[in-house]
């Protein structure tokens, strides 16, 4: 009963006029910065922070958090329509979202993404209401050994997510891992591959890589392509946005699986939503009857990562609020905003500030409803973007990408980096090398290295730490089983002579 009293308390706070108003304000800003490629929630939250000094702390947090999860709704829009991810977390959505748009199903994809985002977010909020206190204990069970094993599992399951040649995919994973080594080594403080360039001492910018390989590369390769008006505005009717029954049915399980993966990864302060999207996509490809459809506009490949993305973002609030441990830069920022108001999140937060905690959680759900109401009518507007001639649209996109990348650190270097990766991505497209595995390697590589080194430091150099800790041992077994199973299936097919190595490994 206690739970219901608390939830009622939360909704009472979240439904007050000021909370509603700023919640709406936050999610609206979030949606728009999410849509703009490169311009992330971080920039928007940083801009809005000074305003919140003069607000009630609960309302301030409701608004800042709204920008954060609102951006996840908008971020898939540009991925689907233009193959340009709005934020890094929706890069995976490009893989099948953009092919869907090219088949004239942009409206359907956007509609489904909005619905699954809502479902993913809502389920995560329910989990949050039920399990936030328990998550603190759960998160403490994860240390470097466990994080390393999760990353290893992620890398192995997701290495072949891109369509086409698995060999080329693996090469790109390695390129990503190599790019991830650039910067200051966390263990020794040594500079690696920085070539004396100060801007490289923090490594290559993830946003620059994502926007360059997906966005700028797409823009460059459009040069010389037929630039006639792609879609007639009259074709964009509401009816054309509604998914068919088959599409709806095909989306149910992927949405739920994606939500589960997202919530689990999101609840761990050291993993991050990007990893969750990769793993959700990989899981769908693994369970699909015909994995070859992926990369060619499979609806499962769009809804699963988007559900994962939204549920991870909501779940990420659990360790932040109950443990005072932020999972990423943005959560750290929200934590900072709370501390400026004199509120210290941590084990006592739920008990000492029940109105604030439950008000915030209730506002998340209200915010998700707002986002649903806001985004469905906007689909019609976004799809009309496709009616803009490329010669106008693409330079505009390039402009926004450059501004967005620049705004993160006010560094011209990052703009140069995004253009460099744009050209690299263009060459890769021409030779059939997929960009997504680079991102996977780049995101996971540095984290794996850091956790691997730290786990061994903790064990004073003994590898047994990976199987002596129970959670790590379980993850290790799963990873090995995955590895053996995939190797076995390839070998069987090749032995029986039914398929060549290339073909057999396509199904991994």
């Amino acid at each position, binding site marked *: 009963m206690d739970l219901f009293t608390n939830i009622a308390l939360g909704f009472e706070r979240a439904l007050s006029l000021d909370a509603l108003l700023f919640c709406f304000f936050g999610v609206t800003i979030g949606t728009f910065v999410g849509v703009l490629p490169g311009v992330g929630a971080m920039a928007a939250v*940083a801009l809005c*922070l*000074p305003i919140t*000094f003069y607000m009630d702390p609960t309302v301030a947090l409701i608004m800042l958090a709204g920008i954060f999860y609102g951006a996840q709704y908008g971020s898939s829009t540009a991925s689907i329509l233009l193959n340009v991810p709005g934020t890094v977390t929706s890069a995976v959505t490009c893989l099948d979202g953009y092919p869907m748009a090219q088949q004239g199903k942009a409206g359907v994809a956007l509609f489904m993404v909005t619905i699954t985002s809502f479902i993913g977010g809502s389920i995560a909020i329910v989990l949050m209401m039920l399990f936030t206190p328990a998550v603190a204990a759960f*998160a*403490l*069970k*994860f*240390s*470097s050994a466990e994080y390393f094993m999760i990353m290893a599992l992620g890398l192995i399951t997701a290495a072949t997510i891109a369509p086409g040649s698995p060999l080329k995919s693996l090469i790109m994973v390695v390129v990503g891992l190599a790019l991830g080594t650039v910067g*200051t*080594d*966390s*263990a*020794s*403080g*040594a*500079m690696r591959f*920085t070539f*004396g*360039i*100060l*801007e490289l*001492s*923090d490594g290559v910018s993830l946003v620059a890589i994502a926007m360059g390989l997906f966005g700028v590369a797409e823009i460059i390769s459009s040069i010389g392509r037929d630039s006639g008006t792609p879609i007639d505005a009259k074709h964009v009717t509401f009816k054309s946005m509604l998914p068919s029954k088959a599409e709806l049915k095909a989306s149910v399980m992927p949405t739920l699986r994606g939500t589960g993966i997202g919530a689990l990864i999101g609840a761990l*302060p*050291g993993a991050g939503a990007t990893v969750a999207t990769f793993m959700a996509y990989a899981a769908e490809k693994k369970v699909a009857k015909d994995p070859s459809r992926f990369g060619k506009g499979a609806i499962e490949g769009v809804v699963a990562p988007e559900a994962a993305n939204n549920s991870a973002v909501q779940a990420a609030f659990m360790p932040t609020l109950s*443990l*005072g*441990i*932020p999972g990423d*830069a943005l959560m*750290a*920022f*929200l*934590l*900072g*905003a709370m*501390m*400026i108001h*004199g509120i*210290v*999140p*941590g*084990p*006592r*937060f739920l008990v000492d500030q029940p109105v604030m905690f439950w008000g915030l959680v209730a506002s998340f759900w209200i915010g998700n409803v707002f986002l649903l109401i806001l985004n469905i009518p906007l689909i019609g507007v976004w799809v009309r973007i496709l009616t803009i001639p490329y010669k106008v649209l693409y330079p505009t996109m390039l402009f926004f990408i450059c501004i967005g990348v620049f705004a993160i*650190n*006010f*560094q011209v270097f990052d703009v140069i980096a995004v253009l460099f990766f744009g050209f690299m991505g263009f060459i890769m497209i021409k030779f059939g090398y997929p960009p997504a595995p680079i991102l996977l390697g780049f995101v996971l590589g540095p984290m794996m290295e*850091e956790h691997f080194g*730290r786990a061994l*430091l*903790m064990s*004073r150099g003994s590898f047994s730490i990976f199987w002596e800790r129970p959670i790590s041992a379980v993850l290790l077994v799963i990873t090995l089983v995955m590895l053996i199973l995939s190797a076995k299936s390839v070998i069987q097919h090749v032995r029986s002579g039914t398929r060549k190595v290339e073909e057999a490994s396509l199904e991994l």
Partner: protein
Amino acid sequence: MKKLLSIGLATLLASAGVTAVQAQDYPTRPIALINPYAAGGSADLIARTIAEYMGRTLGQPVVVENRTGAATAIAAAYVAHAAPDGYTILLAGSPTHVITPALNPAAGYNGIDDFAFVSAVASVPNVLVVSKESGITSIDELAEKALSAPDTVSYASVGSGSLPHLTALMFSQRIGAQMLHIPYAGVAPATVDILAGNVDTGFLNAPPLVAHIQSGDMIPLAVAATKRASLLPDVQTMGELGYGDYEMGTWYGVSAPAGTPADVIAKLDAAIAEALDNPEVQERLQQSGVDIFYKSTPEFIDFIKSDAETVLGLIETSGVEGAQ
């Protein structure tokens, strides 16, 4: 066109002439306070608070610009190479002036010679903590355990060459023990591992730990400063406990490019002193666990020199890559 050009030239010349006497009516336009840290943390709170109140005294807004990256070197290099006119100033600290230039040869500036120092502003206390799981309840017990065998005690830091690393190094050197250094990417993951008992101890920024200290999950052993922290008034300093004086708080100050006129520096220093005298400012900082740490220009210069000596000495013995 010609006329336009000559007007332009005239304006340029006129403005050049003004430079010489400008210090008297400084400031005549907004001042940029460059913050090397991301928005949201203690550093940002300090920067925004003093900027607001300095602006009131100076009659021109002081605008905080967050230029993060390369362990503060991006911001410091930017200010070091800015015009020395008092319109670009830096939120200074050990990293900007001492640690980063010593560790990163690509930093591209000299942490002492390229700057004019204005004043020290505030300090965030670093506190030595252990998990309640560790069974350790006093610094004596920790020292004893550390002395029993090399690397028995592990400590968390927020990176190689970071203040928590150097402070722990100082502690282990003074007691004559060898402790195992485990670097993290930030306070948050380090806190998790200390709480879970995967790492034994660490000298970390106090504000984010207070919740865990209050809940009893973390035990504070000592404050690495000469004065007790207002946030944790019951926790004794290292000196009180007989471990010698430590002035290893994370301090913040303001500096300007070398060559900034002395009267501009004086105006900035006076504005900072006035801001820190304001009870509203004191309340806002202390509420977030930040202690006022004001030092006037000459005191600040002496402080930086002694801080540099301590810190550089520690870096030399630390074995951190890049240390010369």
